[in-house]
């Protein structure tokens, strides 16, 4: 238990948290309450007529097969992004540890993509894999793959997963490198003396000791895949082909800002808010207990 700080003054602690509270109120509670209100209204885009419908919008959204499809798309997308981004980053971090010369240069190059804005990253991948002008698309076709993400849903999904993961690898890499450095070399050396091979050493010593980092990154990556990938999807596929890459967040945007169905869109964002609260609670309550903090 961390020691409790006792303030002699009764008002001071409230004053100290007031700025944070004010920010949370203005940027979270107020918009969230607006979303909640909007989610129970049925309104025309201009707000000229509006009707209070209780939970009708939620009923409508939850019985919409397109929404269920969107949940599935989001699950596939988030799991893939988290797995690819974290797996690749871990591999690169372990490899970079082995580099003796110009380690700093390697690391800098690895961290670079993180500075790229999502929409730009999306455009970059879009051009590389554009069926008619993309250089990598030519390569794929040369390999005999019928590359057409404009019509092939799984290829489009692979493309957005790749673009989204690529952007997140740097961030994960940074944390894994830090995590690896925190592991005492003596442990690994002792295991080596006992005759453990590199893979065994990694699996039984390094990986468990990295668990806090991995857990932290799992949360961050899931949240990233849920919310921060809108720009990439918007730039690369626009949710298509069909509805193959329409994630929950993209659907909120599409229904609200393209199709102007504000009630549905608000109901969806409220559901999204509930999902995130639940996800975070589960992760911290149950998964964190199983993580070994060394």
């Amino acid at each position, binding site marked *: 238990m961390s020691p409790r700080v006792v303030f002699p003054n009764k008002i001071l602690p409230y004053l100290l948290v007031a700025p944070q509270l004010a920010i949370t109120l203005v940027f979270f509670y107020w918009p969230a309450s607006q979303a909640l209100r909007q989610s129970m209204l*049925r309104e*025309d*885009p*201009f*707000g*000229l007529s509006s009707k209070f419908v209780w939970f009708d919008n939620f009923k409508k959204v939850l019985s919409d097969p397109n929404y269920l499809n969107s949940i599935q798309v989001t699950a596939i997308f988030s799991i893939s992004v988290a797995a690819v981004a974290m797996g690749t980053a871990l591999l690169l971090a372990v490899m970079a540890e082995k580099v003796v010369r110009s380690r700093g240069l390697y690391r800098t190059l690895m961290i670079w993509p993180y500075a790229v804005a999502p929409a730009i990253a999306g455009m970059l991948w879009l051009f590389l894999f*554009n069926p*008619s*002008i993309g250089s990598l698309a030519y390569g794929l076709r040369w390999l005999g793959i019928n590359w057409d993400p*404009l*019509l*092939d*849903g799984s290829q489009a999904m692979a493309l957005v997963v790749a673009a989204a993961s690529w952007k997140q690898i740097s961030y994960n890499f940074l944390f894994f490198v830090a995590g690896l450095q925190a592991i005492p070399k003596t442990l690994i050396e002792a295991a080596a003396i006992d005759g453990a091979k590199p893979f065994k050493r990694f699996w039984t010593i390094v990986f468990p000791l990295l668990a806090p980092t991995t857990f932290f990154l799992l949360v961050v990556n899931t949240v990233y895949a849920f919310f921060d990938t809108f720009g990439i999807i918007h730039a690369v596929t*626009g949710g*298509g*082909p*069909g*509805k193959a890459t329409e994630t929950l967040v993209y659907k909120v945007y*599409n229904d609200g*800002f*393209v*199709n*102007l*169905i504000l009630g549905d869109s608000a109901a969806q964002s409220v559901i999204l808010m509930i999902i995130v609260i639940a996800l975070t609670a589960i992760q911290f309550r149950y998964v964190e207990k199983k993580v070994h903090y060394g």
Partner: protein
Amino acid sequence: MKTLGFAAGVAATITLLSSTSAFAVTEISWWHAMTGANNEVVNQLSDEFNKSQSDYKIVPVFKGTYPETLNAGIAAFRAKQPPAIMQVFDAGTGTMMGAEGAIKPVAEILSMGGQAFDKSQYLPGIVAYYSKPDGTMLSFPYNSSSPILYYNKDIFQKAGLDVDNPPKTWDQVWDAAKKIKSSGAAPCGFTSTWLSWIHTENFAAWNNLSYGTNENGIGGTDVELKINAPAFVKHFQELADLAKDGTFKYGGRTSEAKQIFLAGECGIFTESSGGLGDIVKSGMNYGTGQLPYEADAAGAPQNTIPGGASLWVFAGLPEEQYKGVAAFFNFLSQTPIQARLHQVSGYLPVTLAAYEETKKSGFYDKNPAREIPIKQMMGKAPTENSKGVRLVNLPQVRDIENEELEKMLAGQQTAQQALDNTVARGNKAIQEAIGN
């Protein structure tokens, strides 16, 4: 935004210094979605208008893509700070018309400028599209276009096709496309932008087929889609079959296919007449023709319908602003300005006088492609199938069409299934949008 504000500030200061009457200047904001060369035209027009008189000042503001501009305008209206003029794309027309309390009909505004508004001076096909069922013109047509056929003459030559006679019917297009592919003149025969606008909405009008009940929505908001009729199924099944071996290549939901045509990958291309500029710029040896029609459709070709955008004016503004807007629209309607706009930008002229003047100047002899969309729209008096398509939620219905057609082109469903699904989903969406 900061730079814009700064620039506006500087401009205002200069105006203040240069003339004393500037104190009475009424600013009129114009939100638009024009990029590149078209953005320059917007700025130039505003500039010319501002210099032509000293009572009003048009302030153009770029607001992003068409849907982004529409959303910005709607959000601004809800926040009670709308711009005076907003450019809205064709598919957003139904949304604006549905918002009766939010907009002020342009016909009303034009007569506030002191001049009586004479509708007969304007191109009927375009005006009809932007008018209420009772004939009141609601918005000012700014940039109108219509789909036409483009072809690559070099590819035609290589494939042994007649370079001077582009295909006229869809059957001829398919034959030519197959020949281009099989002769190896190009990897693909045919591509098209906007399957929703060109191959569904314009396909219906051009072949005099019904897109939906209630005159495609012109007569009222309660519309039942009719686009799973046999003629549509036949057309899309042909496209789907050609897509299997790559004779038809899909480019995307909006204008993406233009890149495919410009890259010389496909020989034949259907696209908006407004897309001519980029093709001219690319230096391609191109030809143009009318939009193809179905040979066995009775009365085809009928007439095509306009796309592009028009200028809407919000309700609840001070009287002074409306007078300024009227002055600006009258300025835009002047024959020399319309003729120049038409010749420079490739948009259709809004007034008949501008069309006549351009014709007299011999412009079309040198640029026949510029006259094709006008002839397509003016050839015959529009029928109930060809006045246009107006749905409260046309962008959403277009999305549904695109989703189902993409599944069809990927081989997951037949044209019949795709169009049946589109109609079922579209009808449901329309009913929800009109509040049932």
